[in-house]
């Protein structure tokens, strides 16, 4: 009897001790430790490769020095599970305070409007963390290299901006300097090509070098994705005149849906002489890559370049640090030489110089509407995109900062995207998943050894109409999906001014949503009208 009572007490004591441990663990986990009473801001992203986490860590360290009452935690999530992770946490109310998101994440178009908060008004004020710098007094959105252009174009809510960016990505030629010296020899007149026609000359010398030495050397390292980046840029920059002609809306850019609608309404197709000439240029460039490159992945192109078998690899500036550090030869970063008015292939249709690379900023960070520490999160967003933090991010990540006035390391200077030319939009290679599929699927007919522009167009055009229709339908569907949840928000903002103390913030939010909905519906109905008008 006595033994039983003792066993019971022991069990009870153990249970209590277990409960106490669990309670302590829960408390410690939630607050970041018993001794840590700081406000925690969590920032989630998928850039887990070398570079960005270090850059962010340096930014966080400095921020915590300035704000000892706030702790910032990076939540690094692998890209392949990011979308599922994001939705699960947002729906469950456990999302981070600041979240990386991309308009290109499939099946996630409803997420921004449901879970993120627009920050347009904040962006129309100076960033306080830029006091005492050349960016003091500059509107926050104008402190970014591109004025957050992509964040406007792909905003879930017309006229609103939801995110700030951390880096700039640009496609560039990375050049094997040793190989270049071998190819051009002691030619005292050699200077790096500035026009595409001059680049043709260098391509010819490379072919001649390979033939003379018997070395398997090509001008361009080849892989499907690298080729797509390069060819897309060459098409866009060669077709500026067509983009201007198509821009009947006067937007000085081309929204994908406008490109789709114009195609379906017969305003452009691949039979136009400008398009044929630009495709001829594309075919010419692709001949400088090894046969069968369409079957190869990015890593194959990098390996070809690192093995000294290619003079250039066309890739993003995100690869700059690793290419420069890992290659056993000097690597320089070069801008794309562009065709000019004298170009024998596309010169007749020349409009002007295209902006160098895209020059657009990326790694977009959104504010969680239901985040626990929204004010602290906004404060950190301001800091991480300030001049000081932009410099820290770049210095520690090797990625170009999105912030103006940051000082580039010398080796990254040619990688900086400059808006020193026209940037009028494109969409000649793809306006969405379906058009991309049709274009890429048929690309071998253009760039293959037996390929031709005529054969490519003949195969492409019959499928392109259906693909443009499918992409336009997707665009309309995405806009509609983003639109629906806004009704409840508009009504709530207006209702709060009826049932609680009215605030101008509620009125302002409702007004901006109503205007945005109206403009979105205009886009939706124009798309639907074209789909009906052009139905077979």
């Amino acid at each position, binding site marked *: 009897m006595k033994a039983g009572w003792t066993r019971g007490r022991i069990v009870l004591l153990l249970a209590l001790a277990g409960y106490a441990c669990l309670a302590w663990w829960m408390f410690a986990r939630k607050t970041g430790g018993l001794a840590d009473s700081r406000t925690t801001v969590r920032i989630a992203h998928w850039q887990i490769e070398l570079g960005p986490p270090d850059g962010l860590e340096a930014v966080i360290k400095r921020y915590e020095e300035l704000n000892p009452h706030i702790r910032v935690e990076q939540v690094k999530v692998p890209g392949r599970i990011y979308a599922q992770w994001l939705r699960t946490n947002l729906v469950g*109310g456990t999302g981070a305070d600041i979240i990386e998101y991309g308009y290109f994440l499939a099946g996630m178009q409803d997420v921004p409007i*449901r*879970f993120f908060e627009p920050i*347009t008004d904040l*962006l129309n004020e100076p960033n306080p963390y830029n006091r005492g710098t050349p960016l003091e007094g*500059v509107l926050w*959105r*104008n*402190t970014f290299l*591109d*004025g957050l*252009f992509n964040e*406007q174009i792909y905003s879930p809510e*017309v*006229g*609103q*901006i939801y995110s700030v960016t951390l880096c700039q990505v640009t496609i560039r030629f990375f050049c094997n300097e040793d190989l270049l010296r071998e190819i051009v020899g002691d030619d005292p007149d050699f200077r790096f090509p500035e026009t595409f026609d001059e680049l043709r000359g260098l391509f010819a010398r490379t072919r001649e070098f390979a033939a003379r030495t018997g070395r398997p050397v090509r001008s361009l390292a080849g892989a499907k994705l690298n080729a797509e980046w390069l060819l897309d840029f060459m098409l866009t920059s060669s077709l500026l005149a067509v983009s201007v002609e198509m821009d*009947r*809306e*006067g*937007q*000085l850019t081309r929204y994908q849906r406008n490109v789709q609608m114009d195609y379906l309404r017969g305003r452009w197709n691949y039979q136009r002489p400008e398009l044929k000439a630009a495709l001829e240029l594309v075919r010419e460039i692709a001949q400088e890559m090894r046969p069968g490159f369409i079957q190869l992945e990015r890593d194959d192109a990098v390996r070809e370049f690192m093995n000294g078998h290619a003079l250039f690899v066309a890739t993003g500036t995100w690869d700059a640090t690793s290419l420069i550090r890992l290659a056993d030869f000097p690597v320089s970063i070069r801008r794309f030489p562009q065709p000019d008015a004298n170009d024998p292939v596309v010169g007749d249709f020349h409009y*002007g110089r295209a*902006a160098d690379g895209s*020059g*657009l900023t990326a790694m977009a960070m959104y504010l969680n*509407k*239901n985040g626990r520490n929204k004010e602290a999160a906004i404060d950190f967003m301001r800091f991480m995109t300030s001049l000081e933090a932009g410099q820290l991010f770049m210095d520690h990540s090797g990625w170009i900062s999105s912030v*103006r006035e940051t000082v580039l390391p010398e080796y990254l200077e040619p990688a900086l995207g400059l*808006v*020193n030319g*026209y*940037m009028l939009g494109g969409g000649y290679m793809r306006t969405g998943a379906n058009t991309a599929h049709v274009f890429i699927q048929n690309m071998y007919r253009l760039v293959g050894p037996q390929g031709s522009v005529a054969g490519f167009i003949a195969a492409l055009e019959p499928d392109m109409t259906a693909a443009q229709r499918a992409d336009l339908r997707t665009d309309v569907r995405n806009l509609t999906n983003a639109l*629906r*949840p806004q*009704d*409840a*928000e508009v*009504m*709530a*903002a*207006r*209702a*709060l001014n*009826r*049932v*609680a103390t009215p605030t101008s913030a509620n009125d302002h*939010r409702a*007004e*901006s949503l*109503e*205007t*945005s909905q*109206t*403009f979105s*519906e*205009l886009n939706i*109905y124009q798309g*639907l*009208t074209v789909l009906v008008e052009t139905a077979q």
Partner: protein
Amino acid sequence: MAAPLTPCRLIGFVLLACLTALPAVAEPKLAEAWRKVAGHLYTEAGLALRGADESRERELAATVMLAAQQPTTDERLREAERRLEVLAAETDDAVTEVALYLAGRLHQVHFLRADHPRAAEYYETLAIRFPQGHWAQLGLVKLALLQLYMLPEPGGPVERLAKTGALLPRVTRPQLRRDLLIVLGRTRIFYDQPLDAVLTDLLAADEIGGLTGPAQGEFLLQIAELSFWAGHLRQSRDYFTRYLELNTADPRAYTANERLKQIEARLMAGEEGSS
């Protein structure tokens, strides 16, 4: 000297305090529910709403939540429409106006298959019952969009534009009138109407003003570029200049600056352009 605080008195005080607090609690519960709706937290909004007093405002909030709840089903939307119609039939107040607007929205964008004529009927009814009301005038903007693109009649672009233009005098609230003018102008572009007609609408919208941020930038740019094509060089210069004052980093600033150079060259060459 104060009376001693006996247990009975203490209970009495507590009850009294609870009674006086009741209305004050009920009102914030409704506000809290709407705040949760604004954050798209419908489960939490539903919980908050349980503590709110029965009222037409409470029923409206419950119906908005019903319509917004995921996953959306047509059955649930039909139930929401039925409850909105009940609200609209009871009396003419602020709730009625919202209810009729939302009923129109259900048919315009929420049901799996939109019923645009039915949505238009709701907006027409709303505008007749509350001609000066905010939701009624917003409904007229939606009606305009439907007339311009989705309703079967009238058929041709010119007729659609004329019929919708007739709605304009009824939309007197500045923000909504501005938006309708922009819709009209951009629709004229879509239907290949003369540039001067487009610009008339857009300039009238600019006189009302109020756009901010990217929407304003794109709007100014649009007037500037269309004016350039229409040969209104000075007007174009003014709008490009206004755009550049606000947008120093946008990549389109390069093109805008190039346009300004072209305009100056043409003006110097004696091409005055109108306005």
